[in-house]
């Protein structure tokens, strides 16, 4: 499932995730369309992120996941962070944002 609406707090998380690049293309994972959902529960103090990869064989896949996990744990130390790797729906290049497309060709 791809989340359509984000709360203001979740949008802040999305901004943090923009610091995580795909090492191959050098574009951040948000603009590449790899972040599907961000659920921040302030009562339970949990932060759950669903992300995908452009291809299952991506040689730097778990480095990206590790990067997300680390950066969220550092930014939100009081939250329990869970990063889920999902394959549904399958990522397609159409999910790249206009900004991402521009950066890909710079």
């Amino acid at each position: 499932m791809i989340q359509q609406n984000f709360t203001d707090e979740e949008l802040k998380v999305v901004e943090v995730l923009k610091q995580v690049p795909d090492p191959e293309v050098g574009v951040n994972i948000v603009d590449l369309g790899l972040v599907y959902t961000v659920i921040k529960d302030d009562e339970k103090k949990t932060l759950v992120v669903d992300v995908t990869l452009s291809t299952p064989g991506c040689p730097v896949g778990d480095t990206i996941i590790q990067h997300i996990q680390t950066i969220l744990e550092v930014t939100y130390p009081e939250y329990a962070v869970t990063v889920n790797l999902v394959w549904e729906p399958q990522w397609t290049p159409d999910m790249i944002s206009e900004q991402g497309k521009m950066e890909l060709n710079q």
Partner: protein
Amino acid sequence: MQAGLSTKNAPSIWVVAPHFLLAPVSFLMASLYLLFHYGALLGYHISAPVLTVLHLMILGWVTMIIFGALYQLIPVVMEVKLFSETLAYITLTGLVSGLFFLITAFMGYEFQLTNNFIIGGSLIIGAVLVFTINTLVTALKSDKKNMSKLYIVSSAIYLLLTVMMGLFIVLNLKYAWLTKAHTEFLETHVVIGLVGWFLMLVIGVAATLMPMFLIVHKIREDYLKWGFYLINAGVIIIFTITFINQVPEFIRVVAYLMILSGLVLFLLFNYDVFSHRMRKKLDIGMKLSAIALVLLLLSVISFVLVYFGNNVLGLGVGRIEIIAGILLVYGFFTGLILGQTYKTLPFIIWLFHYQKLVGKQKTPLPADLYSDRLATIHMYSFVISLLLFMAGLLFTVKLLLMLAAVAMVFTSIVYGINVYRMIFHKKQIIK
């Protein structure tokens, strides 16, 4: 970490890096040897200098780097860990020691069997056998079903077949088992080596990597599937008729047409990927790969000209044959390796240095590990060298051939510097 990821399947850097360390040395040696024997390109092509350069290029440069890159790419394509890293070290040792004996044998080649041929050939067969076992067992462990896997597995079997045939041919110099012309077996050895091994492998790897690097999702699987059937059928027919007497010539022609059609389908596959790519701007690795594909097309056209020149028009086209060979080995194979080095090696080096630091500290990206400027310089010198080779051969100008060889030596040195720069990279943290 979760299932379905590939970094945990990645091999140790110590398996991959030695191949990238040694292969540029072979490339430099082959280029230097050619510089001292460039005149041989204008003579009969089955000569000691040509065979020395060819085997140094195919085994020491192309095969060496493919082995290293494959240990890294197999986990990407098949999504499993390589079966055995120990077997990979055994393969490397056999290949390097076998190459030493084989090259010294070819340097003094006078159409006679020497002990160095037998020792070198046997060591290389052993190395390739171990490599084939390693690849096949890895493929059996993988439950992925895709065209890439089929191509890679087939290519490993053809590699074993061609090196066995190579040793068979040199042994025949002494024991004269063959009832047919020696050159026909040589032709089959070349076809299985270049088409069955290298081209099949390249197609298999490119089928996964080209769409991945250029960000393309809908690929023409049908081109890959038909290409697989056609190329395999062509190679198997060529191999089979080598052992049968009085085969009508048209069967050989049909087999070559099948291989040619398969190659055209591969070129169309790439054309489709390039024209639908999301990543319009090509980095240096993909620029070199695109140049290599154009050189493959030119090489295919040259081989067709050679066939028509020889068999239809009755012309002596030995020099075009050399041009076709240079376009394939120095052009396509080398261009693709030069380019794909920048798409593979930086990642394993980067993972080795920075995997544990991501998110904690700001690290360079894999593309920061090599000099883009040096890569661009050797891209130009590589193209200039090929143009000089073509001109020198077409117009029989030795000076141009010498300059071409100088440009190729320069290319190999600049490429080697960039590769060594990556291998000996020291960890950097960006503040």
